[in-house]
């Protein structure tokens, strides 16, 4: 198994965190993983993106030019990267900010994660909801596994653990329901 993915959005949407959590999860569960952040050429602002590769074997190129999977939080990012998603690839989009693209050769999962997050009381967990959906859809990890990793990640911030746990389960439920 080698899953090459790209995660993108704009600053503040938790793009990097999402990628890192998946990396932690892979690392925790004895998979190979490679996370590479990309910063815009300008120092601040602009799009934010990262690539993440999860694999059972040692990873060759850490560069993702053709992605198996994408997770996109903003239309501008979608516009930039959609052509890099391989035919047959899987696309997660934040439907609050992105339009479903016209490509017919891919599977699109569009979720209004901004709205859902707001409903849950914290704008900031939109990316975690998406993560839940990802796990449920791809089964790269079990729900327990990702929850376990998240627990680690939020070890030092117990005050936000609860809402993040809720968010991940919310994401899972969106797919499983």
């Amino acid at each position, binding site marked *: 198994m080698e899953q090459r993915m790209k995660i993108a959005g704009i600053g503040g949407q938790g793009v990097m965190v999402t990628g890192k959590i998946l990396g*932690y999860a*892979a*690392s925790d569960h004895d998979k190979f993983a490679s996370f590479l952040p990309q910063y815009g050429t300008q120092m601040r602002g602009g799009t934010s993106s990262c690539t993440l590769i999860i694999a059972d074997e040692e990873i060759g190129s850490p560069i993702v030019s053709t992605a198996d999977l994408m997770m996109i939080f903003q239309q501008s990012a979608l516009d930039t990267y959609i052509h890099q998603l391989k035919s047959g690839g899987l696309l997660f989009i934040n439907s609050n900010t992105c339009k479903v693209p016209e490509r017919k050769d891919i599977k699109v999962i569009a979720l209004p994660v901004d709205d859902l997050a707001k409903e849950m009381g914290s704008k900031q967990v939109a990316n975690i909801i998406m993560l839940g959906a990802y796990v449920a859809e791809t089964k790269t990890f079990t729900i327990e596994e990702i929850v376990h990793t998240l627990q680690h990640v939020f070890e030092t911030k117990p005050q936000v653990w609860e809402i993040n746990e809720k968010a991940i389960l919310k994401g899972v439920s969106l797919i499983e329901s």
Partner: protein
Amino acid sequence: MSKLFMKGNEAIAEAAVRAGCRFFAGYPITPQNEIPEYLSKRLPEVGGAFVQGESELASINMVIGAAFGGTRAMTSSSGPGLSLKSEGLSTLAAAGFPAVVVNVMRGGPGTGSISGAQMDYLQATKGGGHGGFKLLVFAPSTVQEAVDLVYEAFDKSWEYMNPCLILADGFIGSIMEPVELPPFKEAKRQEFPVYTTRFFTDKPGRRMCATMIVNEAEQEQWNRVQAQRYERIAQNEVRAEEYMLDDAEYVIAAYGTSARVAKSAVRMLREKGIKAGLIRPITLWPFPYQCFKKLNEKQVKDILCLELSIPPQLIEDIKIGIEGRIPITAYGRSAGMIFTAEEVTEQVEKLVGKNK
């Protein structure tokens, strides 16, 4: 032992601490800032000292001081900073001091771009300073390998009494990967005998280091001692990874991040029925000439020298290894631009086309 998911720079820093590094001096420069940042907090925790040097120059000279005192010491920087350290590097080598220096390469020349690149190959392996000295140069291609090589570099630098350079690229520095960290080594200060002007005049007792040598004959004698040291390193420390070479007709030569892209490309090429292989130098000096010398020119049709550098640099050593027996083609990107496996595959396919 469970793995940690760590950023290359931080993993390098932690590996150094575990290898017994107890002194670090460095000056900020992207893309290696996490190394000093991490160590500014970490070293005091283990009883070590961190100094943000007022410059790269000051930093390498602080390392010279710490090394003289017998402490395992390190500094890190990127391109322009390495240039500023080159007088100090020459001096570390001239004095025969152990120390580890990290270069997380960015675009260049000049101030250049802050993104990852491999523009400092020749500086690292040939003339990174005056006086014809040599550094033992390790080039990791994964975060795990960076950790392992940094860990080992300290021992090697003490074994040979010669500074070691970790030549990483900005991608290795900023990528996060799972790593298994090595155990903590005892970090005892250890005074070593110092090469000295008194070394030759045979007045023992005091530790006296002078790379300024007034007596010409003594300086020449010391140059010979150094040359022998380099011979020894060249004999014992060459390392490379050979990948799918047995029947390879097209061999990619690449190190660091480029080699990883190359590896993916080799796999893709094999899937397409093209017999591709890879030579990945792990030590850049001493260079694994032998890997290239033993390539069979009747089997190997072309060599692709793959580098994140324009103009190509690695190619010089490959030429020395190949001795004109096999054509060499260079393909490079630079300044943070990086080739994809597909792009590399295409380049090899071009060579295949040429040979038809």
